[in-house]
């Protein structure tokens, strides 16, 4: 079973009125967004804004308090196997099966995904070579650096060529070469016009280079959404960078200035 076809609806991801809560604390509040075919969607936000909670709800790690999530029309809660088969996920932290080697880990993942051995091997060889993982392929994950673990996760996410990639801060630990490779790969990945990528980050310059549209999340609420051009129209300066737009929409620009002033005094 390779990644399921992008059937159902053609929309890679549709989130409607999503709320996620941990006990009394609400992490995401009434979020709605779409990832369209052929699109890289960047979910931006400060630490604790609700990006990871949103992503965890999409990949089935957290049960939403309210709202629906559909992957190519399949509901995440009622058709969880169908949605998981269509998603390639890179988590925020590289918490893997430390006792396995990348080789053993990828065999497990491809077994669970019921991939054809020959195709899986060919795909693995290409990805392992591209990300320069050959030397570490048979070493336990416990002994690998954070960057190498991140590459293993990226390879596992791309192994079954899923129609939807969900990436939670995927570029955190990557070296410049892998970072460039990843950016080009993502751009190429959606070029066929059917796949989608949801990608969370707080690195504005990367989002600016990579994303077709961005959503700005602040305290669990979507403050703004659209292309860079459309966001600029919402009150920021004419040629404002995404960082400036972000700070403006989250009303943090004043806060940053005040914090700096306060630090200068001490």
């Amino acid at each position, binding site marked *: *079973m390779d990644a399921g076809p992008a059937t159902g609806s053609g929309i890679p991801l549709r989130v409607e009125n999503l709320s996620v809560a*941990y*006990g*009394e*604390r609400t992490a995401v509040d009434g979020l709605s967004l779409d990832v369209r075919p052929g699109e890289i969607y960047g979910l931006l936000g400060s630490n604790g804004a609700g990006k990871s909670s949103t992503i*965890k709800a999409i*990949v*089935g*790690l*957290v*049960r939403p308090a309210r709202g629906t999530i559909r992957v190519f029309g399949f509901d995440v809660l009622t058709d*969880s*196997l*169908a949605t*998981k*088969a269509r*998603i390639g*996920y890179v*988590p925020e*932290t590289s*918490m*893997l*099966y*430390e*006792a*396995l*080697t990348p*080789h*053993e880990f*990828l*065999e*497990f*993942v*491809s*077994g*669970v*995904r*019921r*991939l*054809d*051995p020959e195709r*899986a*091997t060919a795909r*693995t*060889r290409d990805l*392992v070579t591209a990300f320069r993982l*050959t*030397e570490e*392929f*048979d*070493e*336990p994950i*416990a*002994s690998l650096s954070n960057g190498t673990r991140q590459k293993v*996760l990226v390879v596992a996410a791309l192994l079954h060529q899923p129609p939807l990639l969900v990436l939670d801060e995927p570029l955190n630990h990557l070296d410049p070469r892998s970072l460039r490779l990843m950016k080009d790969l993502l751009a190429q990945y959606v070029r066929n016009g059917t796949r989608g990528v949801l990608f969370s980050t707080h690195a504005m310059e990367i989002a600016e280079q990579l994303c077709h549209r961005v959503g700005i999340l602040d305290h669990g609420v979507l403050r703004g959404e659209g292309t860079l051009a459309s966001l600029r129209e919402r009150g920021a300066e004419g040629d404002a960078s995404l960082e400036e737009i972000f700070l403006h929409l989250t009303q943090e620009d004043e806060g940053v200035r005040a914090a700096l002033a306060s630090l200068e005094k001490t």
Partner: protein
Amino acid sequence: MSWRAAFRLSQVAFVELSFQAIYAFRQGNVLPPGDTTKLSARARSRVLQSKGLVAGLLGFLTVGAAFILHTASFVAAVLLPTPIPVPMFQAGVLTALLSLDVAFLWWTGLQVLPTFLSAGVLPVLEPLPIDSPTLRQTAVILYLRLFDLPILTLLVLTPVVVGLALGPLAGFAILPGVVAAVVFALALALVTGRFFVRRVQGSRGGGGRSILRWTYMVLWVVPAFGLFGFVTLAPAFFGALTTLAAAGPSLGFDALVATFPFSLAALPPLLTDGSSSLPIGDGGLELLLAAGGGYVLLAVGAARWMGRAIREVGIAPPGIPVPADPRPPTLRTTGAIYAVLVKDLRMASRTPGYAFLILLPILDAVALGLLTYVTGPRPGTATSLALGAVTTAALLATFFGPAFFAIEVVAYSYGRTLPLSDRSLVLGKVSLIGAIYLVAGGLVLALADLRLDQPLIFLGFVLAELPAVLAASLLELGILLRRARKHGLPLVNLYTGAWVAILVSIPGLFVASAPLVAFEALRPYPQTVAVAAMALVALGSLSAIGLFVLRRQTS
């Protein structure tokens, strides 16, 4: 800085250690739903409960041994097949008790050490401006706190109950033996932990290296197997003591006297009954005292070594694998059930706590199979022994079923995002438990075949019990999975989640025992009838439980 500062640091660090022991967040688990502010307190409470449970079991063993000591003259003269001098019997009971203490604490250490290492508590303290002795002391306190209740139970309860059974002098005399047993157990846990970090955890995959890792694991687990093996082999041990006692002073007895823990366990009867109470020849008493003193000195050395080594083990990164020529990647992909089975075996080959659970039923079967072969009893007795071995393997495999679920806690936050159905997950684990049982049964059959009167009936017995083993593990894993989905994944390593493991094992043990009870009930009839009835009961259980559990596990 001082021990007081180290204690203050350890107070904070132990909160984190308890949290990681229960929720395994650093190993990739997801936090359970609900109010996260209460998780830390809940984790501390569950760690305390587990320590209390281990302490309770040790206390039960100790009080049980004291009861046997108290009734020694009756047991040694009347209950044993061949009478044995009472002091010799008492020394034997105390040897058994101290051996069990070492094995049980060591085994607990094997369970706890991976958590101690993966929690990463010590590496967090290292970069802080704390002097080296304080860091060392903090590591020692943290390590000891994992075992505090069990250790206190042994150090306080053993002298008290031995004193009550044999007199106050005997109570004092057993203390060096208890202290040495505790220190050796903790040191052995640390030595094996260090070996694990340096050699096993970091070893490369592929190229037959997993066979090498399993060989390491067997070598490593064999001594800890003493916990169970000693109980299994206790009749043989007391038989040997009887023979030695009857033979009088001999080289064999001198060797026993020089062995731990006999040299320290013999002190209480020696002090209460005098040296003539044991078959000690010329120089035997000196040998016993020298050996006992030597073991106490060794324990002091081991304690000093631990003082240095705990920090080193706690902060050591896994061993760096030996470089090897990279091979072109080849994936042997299979179905999801087999993928789960292979993943668990591979993880167990680098995780001592899990390896132990797989190897224990198998080693026990080997020990009993060998005993059957070597002692060569009459065919009827051999069959009984072999049936006992297979029964034990079935019950052990079933009892440890919940622990195999604990492997899922590792990287749970990743594993749950894969399209792996609950049904495949459960069947993968059930296959592993079934395989363990079949290997154990096969080994008994291979070793005891020549001594059995009806090998085919025995093979029938092994196969007839298999569906019940599968049904029992299905039931246990089904309950655990349901609980995991509802409350977040319960960590059920036998130390930090002992209550969960034991409670879930109880219905499983009933299911696994039902065919054995049917077999025993029909034993007066021809054995083919008894085995057929057993198979019917087992298949009935598997059908009913399979329908109930697998029908529910669809997503």
